[in-house]
């Protein structure tokens, strides 16, 4: 089967206008192709641009040039790099799943609702969405009593599990994982490894940054080196 994600000629830099307009080139001519069922790990020294590439693939950063082709669930192809805000929102609803390093908490919204939201956005009933969210939180060993609480007061590991559940609750064709196991204990790390395995088995394409070499070795089919463009200043 053909690729789910195909990015070519990606360039990204930052101009810091408040610091004398200095230019920070980060990526030049970056390319990446990921097939259904495949997991690609991004590797490289800190500051090389791994997270930047990840954010480009999510539409969170805008590419200076290049294309990011994505195959939607219906088989049609979209170029994220040239997509309008509304198209990006639709791609995030149906095509791109994402687990960031840190959970962005929404005041007063309980953990189970945060996890259920991607399902509700797709039109699944609130009851079913909540049930699926709760089941996944259980699987990630988040105690039942926490499901109904807003995660603002949760520990780092608990917040990360809410974040993971939110990313894995819906079947996205593409999954982006930025250090998904950073603050987890061994048992929960194994759950994440199993979730990644199941996502691959159903045909998801995954791109991940894994600090933990053991996790990386167990889930990644391939490693893509992201090389720094210049010596760290």
């Amino acid at each position, binding site marked *: 089967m053909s690729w789910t994600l195909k990015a070519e000629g990606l360039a990204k830099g930052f*101009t810091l206008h408040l610091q004398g307009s200095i230019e920070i080139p980060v990526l030049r001519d970056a390319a990446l192709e990921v097939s259904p069922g495949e997991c690609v790990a991004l590797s490289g020294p800190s500051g090389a641009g791994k997270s930047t590439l990840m954010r480009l693939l999510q539409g969170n*950063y*805008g590419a200076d040039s290049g294309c990011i082709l994505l195959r939607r669930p219906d088989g049609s192809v979209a170029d994220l790099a040239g997509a309008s*805000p509304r198209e990006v*929102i639709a791609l995030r609803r149906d095509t791109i799943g994402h687990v960031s390093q840190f959970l962005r908490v929404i005041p*007063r919204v309980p953990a189970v609702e945060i996890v259920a939201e991607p399902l509700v956005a797709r039109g699944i009933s609130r009851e079913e969405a909540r049930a699926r969210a709760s089941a996944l939180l259980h699987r990630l060993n988040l105690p039942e009593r926490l499901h109904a609480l807003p995660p603002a007061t949760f520990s780092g590991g608990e917040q990360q599990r809410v974040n993971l559940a939110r990313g894995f609750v819906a079947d996205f064709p593409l999954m982006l994982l930025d250090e998904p196991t950073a603050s987890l204990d061994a048992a929960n790390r194994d759950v994440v490894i199993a979730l990644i395995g199941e996502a691959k088995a159903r045909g998801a394409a995954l791109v991940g940054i894994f600090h933990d070499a053991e996790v990386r070795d167990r889930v990644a089919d391939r490693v893509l080196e992201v090389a720094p463009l210049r010596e760290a200043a």
Partner: protein
Amino acid sequence: MSDGPILSARDVSIAFGAVRAVDGVSLDLWPGEVLAVVGESGSGKSTLLRLLAGEARPDAGTVLYRDPSGATLDVHGMGEPARRRLARTEWGFVHQDPRDGLRLAVSAGGNVGERLMASGARHYGDIRTEAARWLERVEIPAARIDDAPRLFSGGMRQRLQIARTLVTRPRLVFMDEPTGGLDVSVQARLLDMIRALVADLGIAVILVTHDIAAARLLAHRLVVMRHGRVVEEGLTDRVLDDPRHPYTQLLVSSVLAA
């Protein structure tokens, strides 16, 4: 119904003497979309909102509204009676100061019921029931339905204004700094309430705010204004996390962890 923007502004401008308060602004708002207009005080946000809502006339430019039948109406050409009718029914306006959007001497229930009646409701029992339901929805105790908002706290007044505005289920709501005059502790509750209501009802919103965190929480899309002009626009998290324009970088850098 054809798919298209619910509101479209093209090259809208107004000057007050030498001050170009709004200078050639174009934007589109889609059904169900929340668009935040951010920028520092004096950048022209409130003036733009009033031009979009037809409350002030631009020196130049057009504002088009697409009604539920798909017909396109010229906001500044439809005549004041037609615009007022829209403002009572399909549109809503939430003012920064709840005193501008409420009648302080009329009971809480009356404030909500009044807008229902203005949009055509007649049955007294239904109106009171619906008003009570909306007070509950904005977390105002039912026991206070007959109290006048004069007696309410600032946060409660603002929640009442939201109930009064949304009771007719408008398709398009203009909000000018809805959390502006409130304590920080009260702001979070109100923001969360607005977020939930807007999502549940699928309302299109133009939200004017200088609060970047509020824009991040509520808006799909962001427009950054400076000196009456749009200097940057796009997907909310893209503009805030990868700002390009010097002014947007300044705006974002002056907020702690928005």
